[in-house]
């Protein structure tokens, strides 16, 4: 009860103080606060724009894998394997669509099939990208070559439906721009 009385008194004194403030001073205080908000909003926007440009520059110059992290992460694995030195395993790499992404069992191939077939330790890499067709596969292979990846064996998934045109028109949506890095 006592606390409520104190609060009410404080509120009433605040109101009186506000009434006692001359209108010109109140307008000035409002103007100062509005100016502060203006500076805050503009500096926030400027900083955000600077951050975006900075990030874009960093991505373009030193971290291009960020633009296409799915490709970037796999590229990192291949490059590590290729850097392994003279005892490095042979590299088998497969490009294709989501069929490859989900169906090409990397670890199983390493244990049983590829090492047995080639008679040498093998490291396999899956470059299946969802939504890929022949064009994206070609693009992926071009990117790999540009990134100095030379596999011992390259496997390419070919869908007859895409080659015969049965799969419909090849639209822009199949070729996301961030992959054209």
């Amino acid at each position, binding site marked *: 009860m006592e606390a409520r009385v104190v609060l009410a008194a404080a509120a009433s004194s605040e109101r009186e103080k506000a009434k006692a403030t001359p209108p010109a001073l109140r307008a000035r205080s409002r103007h100062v*606060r509005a100016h502060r908000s203006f500076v805050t*909003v503009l500096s*926030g926007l400027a900083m955000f724009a600077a*951050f975006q440009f900075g*990030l874009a520059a960093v991505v373009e110059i030193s971290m291009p894998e960020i633009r296409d992290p799915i490709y970037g992460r796999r590229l990192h694995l291949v490059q590590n394997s290729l850097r392994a030195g003279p005892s490095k395993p042979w590299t088998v790499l497969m490009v294709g669509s989501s069929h490859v992404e989900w169906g090409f069992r990397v670890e199983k191939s390493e244990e049983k099939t590829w090492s047995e077939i080639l008679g040498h330790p093998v490291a396999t890499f899956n470059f299946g990208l969802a939504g890929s067709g022949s064009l994206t596969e070609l693009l992926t292979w071009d990117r790999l070559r540009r990134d100095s990846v030379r596999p011992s064996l390259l496997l390419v998934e070919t869908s007859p439906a895409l080659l015969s045109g049965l799969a419909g028109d090849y639209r822009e949506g199949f070729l996301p721009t961030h992959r054209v890095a």
Partner: protein
Amino acid sequence: MIFCSIEFLVFFLLVAAAYWTLSSRLARALASVASAAYLGYVGWYCFSIAYTAVGWRSDAFDAAWASLPYNGELFFVAAVVFFGAGMAWAFGPQRGRVWLLLAASFYFYASVTLWLALLIFASTILDYCLAHGIQALKAPAWRKSLVAVSVTANLGLLCYFKYTNFFLGSLLAALHRCGATSSFSLLSILAPLGISFYTFEAINYIVDVYRGRVRAEGNLANFMLFILFFPHLIAGPIVRARDFLPQIRRRKRWDWMRIELGARFFLMGLFKKWFIADRMAAFADPVFQYPSDYSGIAIAMAVIAYALEIYGDFSGYTDMAIGTAHMLGFHLAKNFDMPYLSANVSEFWRRWHISLSTWLRDYLFIPLGGSRGGKWQTCRNLLITMTLGGLWHGANWTFIIWGLLHGLLLIGHRMFHGFCEGRSLWKRVLQSGPGTALRVLTTFLAVCLCWVFFRAQSFENATRMLGGLVRLHGKGSPMPAVGLLLTVGVVVFCHLVARRNLWQRVAARLPAPVLGVGYALVLALCLLFAPMAEKPFIYFQF
């Protein structure tokens, strides 16, 4: 179109720019010319491609339309701006703004489905006419009849779109259990987005006009804007006519303070949605889908994650709605007030979805008799109110059980409160620091357990979740526990900062550019944590 999408950003920036510049003749002229030029260009571009030498080809038109920026969305936004500018030339900038917002709201809604937007338009016009009838008539019986017509029409639409299949499905299941067969099947009904929200807004307006608390709005555009105002249209907060209608009539002035406040709210909402809600969904979704596969700890983590997800999602949406409204010069009421710090369930409902709980209190609980009758009558009213509140959320038995559980918790709290009334020792212990912490924790756990029914797709899934809480074996959490702990830490920290009013004190002392940089960093952080795929807001389904 959802708030945290690039389409909404483009839409909002263009509409807000037109909205605030309509008062200047030069800017209005520029807006008119630019939008007309764009409309003309798009029209010419699409028609010239479609109308080739061999004649009209609709597939060529469709292809041309699909190649437009944002799939032709800019065309409609330009049409909205052109319409608003035209109305401003005809009726002055103040009325022009109302019409601009109305057109923008209509487009915002029609971007989902056009005919459902027309349906809302029609029901709004009906409410407008009925409110005038209620105000004009003197005979109580006639007035009551008109209220009944309006409430029946609004609830009828709600029931048809939202509950028809639920009732039919329940009937079919009951018949099946009795061994009977039936020839009817479920209907193919697409429920309009946000129907639950604007139905409640229309009812509160009609009832308030009937009670004489609000005068029937004379201007149809103002009334339509009250119902259709796009920030609150789809998922609230549920606005009251007496709060909102005077704001439409008030003259709007550009105010940097409000812009900053709105941007801050929007940023806060974005942070809650992307940083908290969408990340917590990765913990909760797989476990709620296959609860039998997971261990008790994983299920407990999923339940806590869902509690954070729904809070971040819904209060995030509300913050974005409040922020957007502020940037257009409107004030929407607060809808959340740190609900997980509530010391009892009753307090939880005063802090969670405040606009709904106050609506249920004013238009359901009190008309039912409230707590004016005896103890049993109060308990009955609480149960009815909360169960209907649960049903309002969704057409599923799980929502009804969720509401019922909250009703029981409220009754339990009421009884316990009565028990403690005459016992000063109990009161002192419970109101001490550790006692309060215990009450907050108990309330949080009780609310979390109720969320299981809210989130589960079926009653069986919910019981599997609850039963699985004591399971020792099974898969662990689908995501590393550190992510959940980190998010809990961030949420607790933010709550402490807000509760102690630290932010207000610190922000007032910070230089403005530093504050701006802070906002930019939060936005960048939100973008870094944004999910790859767009995840719709949970409350859109209600």
